Protein backbone atom coordinates (compact mmCIF):
# COMPACT_ATOMS: atom_id res chain seq x y z
CA UNK A 1 0.00 0.00 0.00
CA UNK A 2 1.30 3.47 -0.84
CA UNK A 3 2.06 5.87 2.01
CA UNK A 4 0.71 9.02 0.41
CA UNK A 5 -2.68 9.10 -1.22
CA UNK A 6 -2.73 10.35 -4.82
CA UNK A 7 -4.09 13.75 -5.67
CA UNK A 8 -7.74 14.06 -4.67
CA UNK A 9 -8.87 15.64 -7.95
CA UNK A 10 -10.05 13.31 -10.67
CA UNK A 11 -6.75 12.28 -12.14
CA UNK A 12 -7.29 10.55 -15.48
CA UNK A 13 -4.07 8.65 -15.00
CA UNK A 14 -5.34 7.02 -11.82
CA UNK A 15 -7.52 4.26 -13.11
CA UNK A 16 -9.01 1.20 -11.46
CA UNK A 17 -7.27 -1.92 -12.59
CA UNK A 18 -9.73 -4.23 -10.98
CA UNK A 19 -12.80 -4.22 -8.88
CA UNK A 20 -14.09 -6.96 -6.73
CA UNK A 21 -17.03 -7.37 -4.45
CA UNK A 22 -17.37 -9.46 -1.37
CA UNK A 23 -20.45 -11.05 0.05
CA UNK A 24 -20.03 -11.03 3.79
CA UNK A 25 -23.30 -12.67 4.72
CA UNK A 26 -21.46 -15.74 5.95
CA UNK A 27 -18.30 -13.95 6.98
CA UNK A 28 -16.77 -15.17 10.23
CA UNK A 29 -17.32 -12.00 12.17
CA UNK A 30 -21.00 -11.83 11.28
CA UNK A 31 -21.91 -15.41 12.00
CA UNK A 32 -24.15 -14.41 14.88
CA UNK A 33 -25.88 -11.77 12.82
CA UNK A 34 -26.64 -13.50 9.55
CA UNK A 35 -28.35 -10.41 8.17
CA UNK A 36 -25.43 -8.01 8.36
CA UNK A 37 -26.61 -4.43 7.79
CA UNK A 38 -24.06 -3.95 5.00
CA UNK A 39 -23.51 -7.40 3.54
CA UNK A 40 -21.38 -6.38 0.58
CA UNK A 41 -17.98 -4.85 0.20
CA UNK A 42 -17.01 -3.35 -3.16
CA UNK A 43 -13.27 -2.98 -3.68
CA UNK A 44 -11.67 -0.74 -6.30
CA UNK A 45 -7.98 -1.32 -6.91
CA UNK A 46 -6.70 1.99 -8.20
CA UNK A 47 -3.33 2.41 -9.81
CA UNK A 48 -1.57 5.56 -10.93
CA UNK A 49 0.62 5.10 -13.97
CA UNK A 50 2.50 8.37 -13.39
CA UNK A 51 3.42 7.83 -9.73
CA UNK A 52 3.27 3.98 -9.72
CA UNK A 53 1.12 4.02 -6.60
CA UNK A 54 -1.70 1.72 -5.72
CA UNK A 55 -4.74 2.56 -3.68
CA UNK A 56 -7.59 0.37 -2.52
CA UNK A 57 -11.02 1.94 -2.22
CA UNK A 58 -13.50 -0.05 -0.18
CA UNK A 59 -17.20 0.56 -0.05
CA UNK A 60 -19.68 -1.04 2.34
CA UNK A 61 -22.90 -1.63 0.47
CA UNK A 62 -26.29 -2.69 1.80
CA UNK A 63 -28.69 -5.15 0.20
CA UNK A 64 -30.81 -2.61 -1.67
CA UNK A 65 -28.32 0.23 -1.76
CA UNK A 66 -27.16 1.71 -5.05
CA UNK A 67 -23.61 3.07 -4.80
CA UNK A 68 -22.74 5.77 -7.35
CA UNK A 69 -20.91 4.62 -10.45
CA UNK A 70 -17.22 5.33 -10.92
CA UNK A 71 -17.42 4.91 -14.68
CA UNK A 72 -17.80 8.67 -15.27
CA UNK A 73 -14.47 9.30 -13.57
CA UNK A 74 -12.69 6.21 -14.90
CA UNK A 75 -14.22 4.77 -18.09
CA UNK A 76 -12.61 1.41 -17.43
CA UNK A 77 -14.85 0.91 -14.39
CA UNK A 78 -17.76 0.42 -16.79
CA UNK A 79 -17.28 -3.29 -17.43
CA UNK A 80 -15.98 -4.00 -13.92
CA UNK A 81 -19.18 -2.60 -12.44
CA UNK A 82 -21.30 -4.51 -14.91
CA UNK A 83 -19.54 -7.66 -13.78
CA UNK A 84 -20.14 -6.84 -10.12
CA UNK A 85 -23.83 -6.26 -10.91
CA UNK A 86 -24.00 -9.52 -12.84
CA UNK A 87 -22.36 -11.69 -10.21
CA UNK A 88 -23.43 -9.93 -6.99
CA UNK A 89 -26.56 -7.97 -7.90
CA UNK A 90 -25.22 -4.60 -6.78
CA UNK A 91 -26.70 -1.86 -8.98
CA UNK A 92 -24.53 1.18 -9.57
CA UNK A 93 -26.45 4.43 -9.68
CA UNK A 94 -25.93 6.45 -12.86
CA UNK A 95 -24.16 3.66 -14.75
CA UNK A 96 -24.67 4.06 -18.53
CA UNK A 97 -25.40 0.39 -19.22
CA UNK A 98 -26.33 -1.61 -16.13
CA UNK A 99 -26.85 -4.97 -17.82
CA UNK A 100 -25.45 -8.45 -17.30
CA UNK A 101 -22.11 -9.09 -18.93
CA UNK A 102 -21.00 -12.69 -18.31
CA UNK A 103 -24.27 -14.50 -17.62
CA UNK A 104 -27.14 -14.47 -20.10
CA UNK A 105 -29.72 -11.70 -19.83
CA UNK A 106 -32.42 -14.15 -18.73
CA UNK A 107 -30.38 -15.55 -15.85
CA UNK A 108 -32.03 -15.54 -12.44
CA UNK A 109 -29.89 -14.83 -9.40
CA UNK A 110 -26.35 -13.65 -8.89
CA UNK A 111 -23.87 -16.53 -8.78
CA UNK A 112 -21.07 -15.14 -6.61
CA UNK A 113 -23.36 -14.47 -3.66
CA UNK A 114 -22.63 -16.83 -0.82
CA UNK A 115 -26.28 -17.88 -0.58
CA UNK A 116 -26.46 -18.86 -4.26
CA UNK A 117 -27.36 -22.57 -4.53
CA UNK A 118 -24.39 -24.60 -5.67
CA UNK A 119 -26.45 -27.40 -7.13
CA UNK A 120 -28.97 -25.76 -9.40
CA UNK A 121 -32.65 -26.60 -9.28
CA UNK A 122 -33.62 -30.03 -7.90
CA UNK A 123 -35.42 -31.04 -11.10
CA UNK A 124 -32.23 -30.41 -13.06
CA UNK A 125 -30.50 -33.15 -11.12
CA UNK A 126 -30.02 -36.58 -12.41
CA UNK A 127 -32.09 -39.11 -10.54
CA UNK A 128 -28.87 -40.84 -9.58
CA UNK A 129 -28.69 -41.35 -5.82
CA UNK A 130 -26.38 -44.35 -5.46
CA UNK A 131 -23.39 -45.64 -7.41
CA UNK A 132 -21.82 -49.05 -6.79
CA UNK A 133 -18.26 -49.76 -7.85
CA UNK A 134 -16.15 -52.87 -7.31
CA UNK A 135 -15.09 -51.77 -3.85
CA UNK A 136 -17.37 -49.03 -2.60
CA UNK A 137 -20.90 -47.80 -2.60
CA UNK A 138 -21.27 -44.05 -3.04
CA UNK A 139 -24.40 -42.25 -1.99
CA UNK A 140 -25.44 -38.74 -2.83
CA UNK A 141 -25.95 -36.25 -0.03
CA UNK A 142 -26.71 -32.84 -1.36
CA UNK A 143 -25.93 -31.03 1.89
CA UNK A 144 -22.30 -32.08 1.65
CA UNK A 145 -20.05 -29.76 -0.32
CA UNK A 146 -16.92 -31.87 -0.10
CA UNK A 147 -16.71 -34.44 -2.87
CA UNK A 148 -19.45 -32.57 -4.74
CA UNK A 149 -22.10 -34.24 -2.65
CA UNK A 150 -20.89 -37.80 -3.13
CA UNK A 151 -20.11 -39.75 0.00
CA UNK A 152 -18.31 -43.04 0.29
CA UNK A 153 -20.78 -44.95 2.37
CA UNK A 154 -20.22 -48.69 2.63
CA UNK A 155 -17.06 -50.62 2.06
CA UNK A 156 -17.72 -53.95 0.44
CA UNK A 157 -16.05 -57.00 1.89
CA UNK A 158 -14.78 -58.46 -1.34
CA UNK A 159 -17.68 -60.78 -2.10
CA UNK A 160 -18.45 -61.15 -5.78
CA UNK A 161 -14.95 -60.24 -6.86
CA UNK A 162 -13.80 -63.72 -7.76
Amino acid sequence: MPQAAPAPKANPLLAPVASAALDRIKAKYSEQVIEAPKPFEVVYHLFSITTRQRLNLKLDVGEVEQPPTASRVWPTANWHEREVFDLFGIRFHGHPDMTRILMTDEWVGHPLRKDYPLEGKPEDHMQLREVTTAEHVYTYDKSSIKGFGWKKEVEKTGEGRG
Partner: protein
Amino acid sequence: MMFRTEEMDINMGPQHPSTHGVLRLVLNLDGEEIVDVRPVIGYLHRGVEKLSEHRTYAMIEPLTDRLDYVAAISENLGYCGAVEKLMGLQVPPRAQSIRVILAELQRIASHLLWLGTHALDLGAMTVFFYTFRERELILDLFEQFCGARLTYNAMRIGGLLEDVPPGWTDRVRHFLSIFPSRQKEYEDLLTVNRIWLGRTQGVGVLSREDAVALGTSGPTLRGSGVDYDVRKSQPYSSYDQFDFDVPLGTKGDTYDRYLVRMEEMRQSCRIIQQALDRLPEGEVRAKVPKYIKPPAGEVYHVVESPRGEQGFYIVSKGSEMPYRMRFRSPSFVNLQALPMMCKGRLIADVVAIIGSIDIVLGDVDR
Protein backbone atom coordinates in the same frame (compact mmCIF):
# COMPACT_ATOMS: atom_id res chain seq x y z
CA MET B 1 -32.91 7.56 -58.04
CA MET B 2 -33.16 7.49 -54.21
CA PHE B 3 -30.91 5.38 -51.97
CA ARG B 4 -31.89 4.17 -48.54
CA THR B 5 -29.14 5.37 -46.20
CA GLU B 6 -30.24 3.93 -42.86
CA GLU B 7 -27.88 2.21 -40.46
CA MET B 8 -27.80 -1.53 -40.11
CA ASP B 9 -26.94 -3.95 -37.27
CA ILE B 10 -25.12 -7.13 -38.06
CA ASN B 11 -23.63 -9.87 -35.90
CA MET B 12 -20.01 -10.88 -36.13
CA GLY B 13 -19.51 -14.10 -34.21
CA PRO B 14 -19.79 -15.86 -31.80
CA GLN B 15 -18.65 -18.45 -34.35
CA HIS B 16 -16.25 -16.55 -36.54
CA PRO B 17 -12.66 -17.55 -37.29
CA SER B 18 -11.28 -14.02 -36.87
CA THR B 19 -12.69 -13.44 -33.39
CA HIS B 20 -10.21 -15.95 -31.93
CA GLY B 21 -12.81 -17.75 -29.88
CA VAL B 22 -16.42 -17.19 -28.99
CA LEU B 23 -16.55 -13.41 -29.11
CA ARG B 24 -19.70 -11.83 -30.52
CA LEU B 25 -19.65 -8.29 -31.84
CA VAL B 26 -22.83 -6.44 -32.70
CA LEU B 27 -21.73 -4.03 -35.41
CA ASN B 28 -23.76 -0.95 -36.17
CA LEU B 29 -22.92 -0.06 -39.77
CA ASP B 30 -23.42 2.86 -42.07
CA GLY B 31 -22.63 1.25 -45.39
CA GLU B 32 -19.35 -0.45 -44.70
CA GLU B 33 -18.28 2.06 -42.06
CA ILE B 34 -18.50 1.20 -38.37
CA VAL B 35 -20.73 3.52 -36.35
CA ASP B 36 -20.64 1.52 -33.14
CA VAL B 37 -19.46 -1.84 -31.86
CA ARG B 38 -20.92 -3.68 -28.88
CA PRO B 39 -18.91 -6.68 -27.68
CA VAL B 40 -21.09 -9.44 -26.22
CA ILE B 41 -19.07 -11.80 -24.03
CA GLY B 42 -19.66 -14.60 -21.57
CA TYR B 43 -19.95 -17.56 -23.93
CA LEU B 44 -16.98 -19.22 -22.25
CA HIS B 45 -17.86 -18.24 -18.67
CA ARG B 46 -17.10 -21.19 -16.42
CA GLY B 47 -17.38 -19.49 -13.07
CA VAL B 48 -13.77 -20.05 -12.08
CA GLU B 49 -14.04 -17.49 -9.27
CA LYS B 50 -16.95 -19.37 -7.73
CA LEU B 51 -15.22 -22.71 -8.21
CA SER B 52 -12.14 -21.36 -6.44
CA GLU B 53 -14.18 -20.67 -3.32
CA HIS B 54 -14.75 -24.40 -3.00
CA ARG B 55 -11.25 -25.66 -3.81
CA THR B 56 -8.15 -25.83 -1.67
CA TYR B 57 -5.28 -23.56 -2.66
CA ALA B 58 -3.35 -26.36 -4.35
CA MET B 59 -6.43 -27.34 -6.38
CA ILE B 60 -6.86 -23.85 -7.86
CA GLU B 61 -3.64 -23.81 -9.85
CA PRO B 62 -4.95 -26.18 -12.57
CA LEU B 63 -7.98 -23.89 -12.85
CA THR B 64 -5.70 -20.94 -13.62
CA ASP B 65 -4.27 -22.92 -16.56
CA ARG B 66 -7.70 -22.75 -18.15
CA LEU B 67 -8.08 -18.98 -17.93
CA ASP B 68 -5.49 -17.82 -20.42
CA TYR B 69 -4.78 -21.12 -22.06
CA VAL B 70 -2.30 -19.59 -24.50
CA ALA B 71 -0.05 -18.40 -21.67
CA ALA B 72 -0.83 -20.76 -18.82
CA ILE B 73 2.59 -20.41 -17.17
CA SER B 74 2.08 -16.69 -16.63
CA GLU B 75 -1.16 -17.49 -14.82
CA ASN B 76 0.56 -20.16 -12.69
CA LEU B 77 3.31 -17.72 -11.81
CA GLY B 78 0.85 -15.00 -10.80
CA TYR B 79 -1.35 -17.29 -8.75
CA CYS B 80 1.53 -18.95 -6.90
CA GLY B 81 3.08 -15.53 -6.31
CA ALA B 82 -0.16 -14.24 -4.78
CA VAL B 83 -0.49 -17.18 -2.38
CA GLU B 84 3.20 -16.95 -1.46
CA LYS B 85 2.79 -13.25 -0.72
CA LEU B 86 -0.21 -14.04 1.46
CA MET B 87 1.71 -16.73 3.37
CA GLY B 88 4.97 -14.79 3.53
CA LEU B 89 6.92 -17.58 1.80
CA GLN B 90 10.40 -17.01 0.41
CA VAL B 91 10.91 -18.82 -2.89
CA PRO B 92 14.47 -20.19 -3.38
CA PRO B 93 16.52 -18.22 -5.95
CA ARG B 94 16.92 -21.19 -8.31
CA ALA B 95 13.16 -21.66 -8.48
CA GLN B 96 12.70 -17.95 -9.17
CA SER B 97 15.16 -18.01 -12.06
CA ILE B 98 13.60 -21.12 -13.59
CA ARG B 99 10.20 -19.46 -13.26
CA VAL B 100 11.53 -16.45 -15.16
CA ILE B 101 12.90 -18.69 -17.93
CA LEU B 102 9.56 -20.48 -18.21
CA ALA B 103 7.56 -17.26 -18.18
CA GLU B 104 9.68 -15.67 -20.89
CA LEU B 105 9.57 -18.79 -23.07
CA GLN B 106 5.82 -18.65 -22.61
CA ARG B 107 5.79 -15.00 -23.68
CA ILE B 108 7.60 -15.90 -26.90
CA ALA B 109 5.25 -18.85 -27.53
CA SER B 110 2.19 -16.68 -26.91
CA HIS B 111 3.46 -13.89 -29.17
CA LEU B 112 4.24 -16.44 -31.88
CA LEU B 113 0.67 -17.74 -31.77
CA TRP B 114 -0.58 -14.14 -31.90
CA LEU B 115 1.68 -13.28 -34.83
CA GLY B 116 0.70 -16.32 -36.86
CA THR B 117 -3.05 -15.93 -36.37
CA HIS B 118 -2.96 -12.14 -36.73
CA ALA B 119 -1.14 -12.42 -40.05
CA LEU B 120 -3.46 -15.22 -41.15
CA ASP B 121 -6.47 -12.97 -40.44
CA LEU B 122 -4.97 -10.33 -42.71
CA GLY B 123 -4.26 -12.79 -45.50
CA ALA B 124 -0.59 -13.61 -44.96
CA MET B 125 -0.65 -17.36 -44.65
CA THR B 126 3.06 -18.17 -44.78
CA VAL B 127 3.85 -16.51 -41.44
CA PHE B 128 1.47 -18.89 -39.67
CA PHE B 129 3.51 -21.94 -40.69
CA TYR B 130 6.77 -20.26 -39.77
CA THR B 131 5.67 -19.18 -36.29
CA PHE B 132 4.12 -22.53 -35.44
CA ARG B 133 7.40 -24.19 -36.38
CA GLU B 134 9.17 -22.30 -33.58
CA ARG B 135 6.26 -22.47 -31.16
CA GLU B 136 6.52 -26.23 -31.47
CA LEU B 137 10.11 -26.08 -30.22
CA ILE B 138 9.01 -24.19 -27.12
CA LEU B 139 6.12 -26.57 -26.48
CA ASP B 140 8.61 -29.44 -26.68
CA LEU B 141 10.71 -27.71 -24.01
CA PHE B 142 7.64 -27.36 -21.80
CA GLU B 143 6.71 -30.97 -22.38
CA GLN B 144 10.16 -32.05 -21.28
CA PHE B 145 9.87 -29.87 -18.19
CA CYS B 146 6.38 -30.73 -16.93
CA GLY B 147 4.85 -33.26 -19.29
CA ALA B 148 2.12 -31.05 -20.70
CA ARG B 149 1.89 -28.98 -23.85
CA LEU B 150 -0.91 -26.54 -23.15
CA THR B 151 -2.20 -26.62 -19.56
CA TYR B 152 1.05 -26.97 -17.69
CA ASN B 153 0.33 -26.71 -13.96
CA ALA B 154 4.06 -26.06 -14.00
CA MET B 155 4.59 -24.48 -10.59
CA ARG B 156 3.74 -25.19 -7.02
CA ILE B 157 3.08 -22.85 -4.14
CA GLY B 158 6.55 -22.20 -2.74
CA GLY B 159 8.54 -22.99 -5.88
CA LEU B 160 8.52 -25.81 -8.40
CA LEU B 161 7.65 -29.48 -8.19
CA GLU B 162 10.99 -30.62 -9.56
CA ASP B 163 14.22 -29.25 -10.91
CA VAL B 164 14.68 -29.06 -14.67
CA PRO B 165 15.53 -32.39 -16.34
CA PRO B 166 19.19 -33.07 -17.32
CA GLY B 167 20.22 -31.31 -20.51
CA TRP B 168 17.16 -29.04 -20.52
CA THR B 169 19.15 -25.81 -20.19
CA ASP B 170 21.27 -26.83 -23.18
CA ARG B 171 18.14 -27.31 -25.25
CA VAL B 172 16.93 -23.85 -24.19
CA ARG B 173 20.31 -22.44 -25.26
CA HIS B 174 19.94 -24.20 -28.59
CA PHE B 175 16.53 -22.59 -29.06
CA LEU B 176 18.01 -19.17 -28.24
CA SER B 177 20.76 -19.70 -30.81
CA ILE B 178 18.34 -20.37 -33.67
CA PHE B 179 15.45 -18.09 -32.75
CA PRO B 180 16.89 -14.67 -33.83
CA SER B 181 17.42 -15.88 -37.40
CA ARG B 182 13.89 -17.34 -37.47
CA GLN B 183 12.46 -14.07 -36.17
CA LYS B 184 14.23 -12.27 -39.00
CA GLU B 185 12.29 -14.47 -41.41
CA TYR B 186 8.96 -13.24 -40.04
CA GLU B 187 10.11 -9.66 -40.19
CA ASP B 188 11.30 -10.07 -43.78
CA LEU B 189 7.80 -11.22 -44.62
CA LEU B 190 5.90 -8.49 -42.79
CA THR B 191 7.69 -5.43 -41.46
CA VAL B 192 8.15 -3.61 -44.78
CA ASN B 193 5.51 -5.56 -46.69
CA ARG B 194 3.31 -3.01 -48.51
CA ILE B 195 0.09 -4.97 -47.96
CA TRP B 196 0.89 -5.44 -44.28
CA LEU B 197 1.64 -1.72 -43.88
CA GLY B 198 -1.58 -0.81 -45.67
CA ARG B 199 -3.65 -3.07 -43.45
CA THR B 200 -2.08 -2.06 -40.13
CA GLN B 201 -0.69 1.50 -40.26
CA GLY B 202 -3.17 4.05 -38.96
CA VAL B 203 -5.70 1.31 -38.17
CA GLY B 204 -7.21 1.10 -34.70
CA VAL B 205 -5.49 4.13 -33.24
CA LEU B 206 -5.70 4.31 -29.47
CA SER B 207 -4.46 7.58 -28.04
CA ARG B 208 -2.29 7.70 -24.96
CA GLU B 209 -5.02 9.26 -22.82
CA ASP B 210 -7.69 6.80 -23.95
CA ALA B 211 -5.40 3.83 -23.40
CA VAL B 212 -4.86 4.88 -19.78
CA ALA B 213 -8.46 5.90 -19.13
CA LEU B 214 -9.72 2.55 -20.42
CA GLY B 215 -7.29 0.71 -18.17
CA THR B 216 -5.52 -1.19 -20.93
CA SER B 217 -2.19 -2.81 -20.19
CA GLY B 218 0.54 -4.82 -21.82
CA PRO B 219 1.51 -4.30 -25.47
CA THR B 220 -1.86 -2.57 -26.11
CA LEU B 221 -0.89 0.17 -23.64
CA ARG B 222 2.78 0.30 -24.60
CA GLY B 223 1.89 0.53 -28.28
CA SER B 224 0.31 3.88 -27.39
CA GLY B 225 3.58 5.06 -25.88
CA VAL B 226 2.86 4.64 -22.16
CA ASP B 227 5.86 3.27 -20.33
CA TYR B 228 4.38 0.74 -17.94
CA ASP B 229 5.57 -2.80 -17.48
CA VAL B 230 4.90 -4.67 -14.24
CA ARG B 231 8.26 -6.43 -14.58
CA LYS B 232 9.97 -3.04 -14.28
CA SER B 233 7.67 -1.09 -11.98
CA GLN B 234 6.90 -3.80 -9.41
CA PRO B 235 9.43 -6.56 -10.05
CA TYR B 236 8.43 -10.05 -8.96
CA SER B 237 10.24 -13.38 -9.07
CA SER B 238 13.73 -11.80 -9.39
CA TYR B 239 12.93 -9.76 -12.54
CA ASP B 240 14.83 -6.86 -10.98
CA GLN B 241 18.11 -8.74 -11.50
CA PHE B 242 17.81 -8.81 -15.28
CA ASP B 243 18.70 -6.18 -17.80
CA PHE B 244 16.05 -5.62 -20.47
CA ASP B 245 14.28 -2.81 -22.30
CA VAL B 246 10.59 -2.05 -22.52
CA PRO B 247 9.72 -1.25 -26.16
CA LEU B 248 7.23 1.57 -26.73
CA GLY B 249 5.16 2.59 -29.72
CA THR B 250 4.46 6.16 -30.80
CA LYS B 251 1.21 6.29 -32.78
CA GLY B 252 -0.82 3.64 -30.97
CA ASP B 253 -1.98 1.91 -34.14
CA THR B 254 -2.04 -1.76 -35.06
CA TYR B 255 1.40 -1.54 -36.65
CA ASP B 256 2.95 -0.10 -33.47
CA ARG B 257 1.49 -2.89 -31.39
CA TYR B 258 3.00 -5.33 -33.88
CA LEU B 259 6.43 -3.71 -33.53
CA VAL B 260 6.18 -3.70 -29.73
CA ARG B 261 5.47 -7.43 -29.58
CA MET B 262 8.24 -8.25 -32.05
CA GLU B 263 10.74 -6.33 -29.91
CA GLU B 264 9.39 -7.97 -26.74
CA MET B 265 10.33 -11.37 -28.14
CA ARG B 266 13.92 -10.17 -28.58
CA GLN B 267 13.98 -8.81 -25.02
CA SER B 268 12.58 -12.10 -23.72
CA CYS B 269 15.52 -13.89 -25.37
CA ARG B 270 17.88 -11.49 -23.59
CA ILE B 271 16.26 -12.26 -20.23
CA ILE B 272 16.40 -16.02 -20.78
CA GLN B 273 20.07 -15.79 -21.80
CA GLN B 274 20.95 -13.89 -18.62
CA ALA B 275 18.93 -16.26 -16.45
CA LEU B 276 20.67 -19.29 -17.96
CA ASP B 277 24.11 -17.75 -17.51
CA ARG B 278 23.49 -16.91 -13.86
CA LEU B 279 21.28 -19.82 -12.85
CA PRO B 280 21.85 -20.31 -9.10
CA GLU B 281 22.24 -23.72 -7.56
CA GLY B 282 20.14 -25.03 -4.71
CA GLU B 283 16.63 -26.06 -3.79
CA VAL B 284 13.64 -25.42 -6.00
CA ARG B 285 10.95 -25.46 -3.35
CA ALA B 286 10.60 -23.67 -0.05
CA LYS B 287 9.44 -25.45 3.08
CA VAL B 288 5.69 -25.51 2.59
CA PRO B 289 3.24 -27.03 5.08
CA LYS B 290 1.33 -30.04 3.81
CA TYR B 291 -2.00 -28.28 4.27
CA ILE B 292 -1.81 -24.79 2.89
CA LYS B 293 -3.75 -22.46 5.14
CA PRO B 294 -2.76 -18.84 4.59
CA PRO B 295 -3.45 -16.46 7.48
CA ALA B 296 -6.53 -14.26 7.33
CA GLY B 297 -5.97 -11.26 5.13
CA GLU B 298 -6.07 -10.15 1.56
CA VAL B 299 -3.56 -9.70 -1.21
CA TYR B 300 -3.50 -8.22 -4.70
CA HIS B 301 -0.60 -9.51 -6.75
CA VAL B 302 0.13 -8.55 -10.35
CA VAL B 303 2.34 -10.09 -13.00
CA GLU B 304 3.02 -9.08 -16.59
CA SER B 305 1.43 -11.73 -18.74
CA PRO B 306 1.92 -11.61 -22.54
CA ARG B 307 -1.40 -9.77 -22.72
CA GLY B 308 -0.86 -7.28 -19.92
CA GLU B 309 -1.38 -6.82 -16.24
CA GLN B 310 -2.68 -10.05 -14.75
CA GLY B 311 -3.96 -9.47 -11.23
CA PHE B 312 -4.88 -11.94 -8.51
CA TYR B 313 -6.96 -10.74 -5.58
CA ILE B 314 -7.32 -13.28 -2.79
CA VAL B 315 -9.30 -12.77 0.39
CA SER B 316 -8.46 -15.37 3.00
CA LYS B 317 -10.32 -16.03 6.23
CA GLY B 318 -7.64 -18.41 7.43
CA SER B 319 -9.26 -21.55 6.08
CA GLU B 320 -7.94 -24.00 3.51
CA MET B 321 -10.05 -22.44 0.75
CA PRO B 322 -10.07 -18.79 -0.31
CA TYR B 323 -13.06 -16.74 0.78
CA ARG B 324 -13.01 -14.72 -2.43
CA MET B 325 -10.82 -15.11 -5.47
CA ARG B 326 -10.79 -12.52 -8.20
CA PHE B 327 -8.85 -12.74 -11.46
CA ARG B 328 -8.15 -9.40 -13.10
CA SER B 329 -7.63 -10.55 -16.63
CA PRO B 330 -5.93 -8.22 -19.12
CA SER B 331 -8.00 -9.48 -22.08
CA PHE B 332 -11.26 -8.48 -20.37
CA VAL B 333 -10.07 -4.93 -19.83
CA ASN B 334 -8.30 -4.53 -23.18
CA LEU B 335 -11.41 -5.70 -25.02
CA GLN B 336 -13.25 -2.73 -23.56
CA ALA B 337 -11.10 -0.47 -25.76
CA LEU B 338 -12.27 -2.20 -28.94
CA PRO B 339 -15.32 0.03 -29.68
CA MET B 340 -13.22 3.17 -29.44
CA MET B 341 -10.59 1.77 -31.82
CA CYS B 342 -13.15 0.57 -34.38
CA LYS B 343 -15.33 3.66 -34.76
CA GLY B 344 -15.14 5.17 -38.23
CA ARG B 345 -13.18 2.26 -39.70
CA LEU B 346 -14.29 -0.42 -42.16
CA ILE B 347 -15.47 -3.94 -41.30
CA ALA B 348 -12.23 -5.47 -42.56
CA ASP B 349 -10.31 -3.33 -40.05
CA VAL B 350 -12.25 -4.84 -37.13
CA VAL B 351 -10.50 -8.13 -37.86
CA ALA B 352 -7.11 -6.41 -37.76
CA ILE B 353 -7.94 -4.59 -34.51
CA ILE B 354 -9.20 -7.72 -32.70
CA GLY B 355 -5.97 -9.41 -33.70
CA SER B 356 -3.86 -6.50 -32.52
CA ILE B 357 -5.24 -6.44 -28.96
CA ASP B 358 -4.55 -10.18 -28.71
CA ILE B 359 -7.44 -11.38 -26.58
CA VAL B 360 -7.99 -14.91 -25.34
CA LEU B 361 -11.63 -15.60 -24.68
CA GLY B 362 -10.91 -18.01 -21.86
CA ASP B 363 -9.28 -15.08 -20.12
CA VAL B 364 -12.08 -12.63 -20.97
CA ASP B 365 -14.92 -14.81 -19.73
CA ARG B 366 -13.13 -16.75 -16.96
